[in-house]
């Protein structure tokens, strides 16, 4: 009886899983097909006449090493900066009392609700005046004003008993030291999972870099994909799939290597009240 029921659940879950994983298999399979096979046998997961021609073409047309490095630097810089500033701000909001604290927190958190289209035009003008157009710094800067990190890390910090902090204060420990050696280790899952989320989002950022970056050597990976999609000339589907695979391969491989750690981090962080 119990086994039957469990089996039913597994069928249901397996089906849902198939739906979410098939597109990835589909992308990989079609990136190794010739265009005519992709059109006529889009369904098959194993190419009849496998070819790496699509990849060779992409590699010959784009400085992919540079583009991947750019993407990495953008994602890494944004992640590190955002995680650090969020942790600092969250600490102040939890362990300090000062005038306007609640108002300031509310204002910062409300920005989560501001659609990116609101800030797009002025930010473009600002980045231009700073001279960071066609530069990955121009891609990084506006991303940094993101309050989700402050929110998530603050929520995690609130679960730490205040007595611990008070004890440390009595022993004359400085706030930075308390943050680094007591608070952060205690809430590491929350901090790391926030960082992972930042990294993934930044890696896949698309609308903004399209506006900022001009030269191929400055591109990030989602832009490289744009180069092979054209409405007027038709998208060369198999090439687009090859670029898609290149775009997702690094996050995918990193995820597969560290999945146990990533999943356990996420599941032990949660969002605490």
């Amino acid at each position: 009886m119990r086994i039957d029921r469990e089996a039913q659940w597994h069928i249901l879950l397996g089906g849902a899983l198939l739906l979410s994983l098939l597109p990835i298999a589909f992308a990989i399979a079609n990136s190794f097909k010739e265009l005519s096979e992709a059109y006529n046998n889009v369904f098959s997961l194993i190419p009849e006449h496998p070819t790496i021609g699509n990849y060779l073409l992409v590699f010959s047309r784009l400085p992919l090493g540079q583009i991947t490095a750019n993407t990495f630097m953008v994602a890494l810089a944004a992640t590190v900066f955002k995680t650090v500033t969020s942790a600092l701000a969250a600490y102040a909001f939890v362990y300090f009392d000062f005038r306007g604290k609640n108002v300031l927190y509310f204002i910062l958190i409300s920005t989560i609700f501001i659609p990116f289209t609101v800030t797009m035009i002025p930010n473009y003008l600002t980045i231009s005046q700073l001279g960071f157009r066609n530069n990955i710094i121009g891609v990084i800067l506006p991303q940094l004003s993101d309050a989700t990190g402050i929110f998530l890390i603050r929520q995690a910090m609130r679960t730490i008993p205040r007595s611990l902090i008070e004890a440390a204060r009595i022993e004359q420990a400085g706030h930075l030291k308390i943050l680094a050696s007591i608070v952060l280790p205690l809430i590491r899952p929350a901090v790391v999972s926030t960082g992972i989320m930042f990294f993934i989002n930044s890696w896949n950022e698309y609308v903004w870099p399209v506006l900022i970056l001009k030269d191929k050597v400055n591109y990030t990976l989602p832009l490289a994909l744009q180069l092979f999609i054209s409405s007027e000339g038709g998208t060369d589907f198999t090439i687009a799939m090859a670029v898609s695979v290149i775009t997702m391969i690094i996050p995918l491989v990193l995820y597969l290597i560290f999945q146990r750690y990533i999943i356990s981090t996420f599941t032990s962080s949660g969002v605490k009240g």
Partner: protein
Amino acid sequence: MSGNALLAYGFILPSLLVFAVFMFYPLLYTVYLSFFEWNMIKPVKAFVGWGNYIALLQDPLTYVVLKNTFAYIVILLLLNCAAPYILAFILSFVIRRGRDFYKSAFFLPSVISLVVGSILYLWILNPISGPVAIIAKFFGITIPVWSKTQGLVIGVLSIITTWKVFGYNFIVLFGGITGVPQEVIEAAKIDNVPLHRIFLDIVLPMSSATGVYIFIMTIVQGLQYVFTPIKVVTQGGPDNASSNAIYNVYQEGFTLYHTGYASAFAIVTMVLFVVLLLAEFKYVEKGIYYEN
């Protein structure tokens, strides 16, 4: 504990600086622009007062877009908040085998770009010749031309978005549910409480902090995520049936160059969101279960 206020500001300062330049200043500038008629390049901005706001209220398209936005919110809440919640519950307390495998596998698509997902799904769901259509044909079913069908198009674009968002929401909710003590659930099971009652009466209230976070994120980020498939697949069509508040701002501002009008629309959207947040805050402070 009364900390040093200056020091507190010092801790917040790095964040505050970035926010001032790339969030608050642009926000004010957008408010300013919303009172002008301008196309970003004309040397003179024409002051129109509340004109853009009045035009916006009188435009039937505004209400179509708001209705669509609402439809997106409802569907996204079902697919990206309710569904992963239930899945997390099943994985935590119902099934016994394969938990780790499912957790890892369901999270996987969320590391991939939504642009990639949109292109993929456009092919997979092609109603004439995509794989799904071929399978459906085998069973004698014809897939409607969803990209040109009112209503349906919102559903399909939401599904594409779900492919990307589901994993993250699921894993965070799973983390939240883990906080519910296993013994409580086991006790309820022994008492033969049906699963849906366990979920609704025990798990949901005890993980509500996480639940509310995902609820808000589903609405706010979900609507922004949907932007990508709208742009890649339908450009807001057919006849604005798939446009939402965020895409409409982009369409007005960057396709039709109604910069002032787009700014006004953006501000209205934001105000609606913030009202939502206020309502949420009230609820959060009252009804949430805190672990401490």
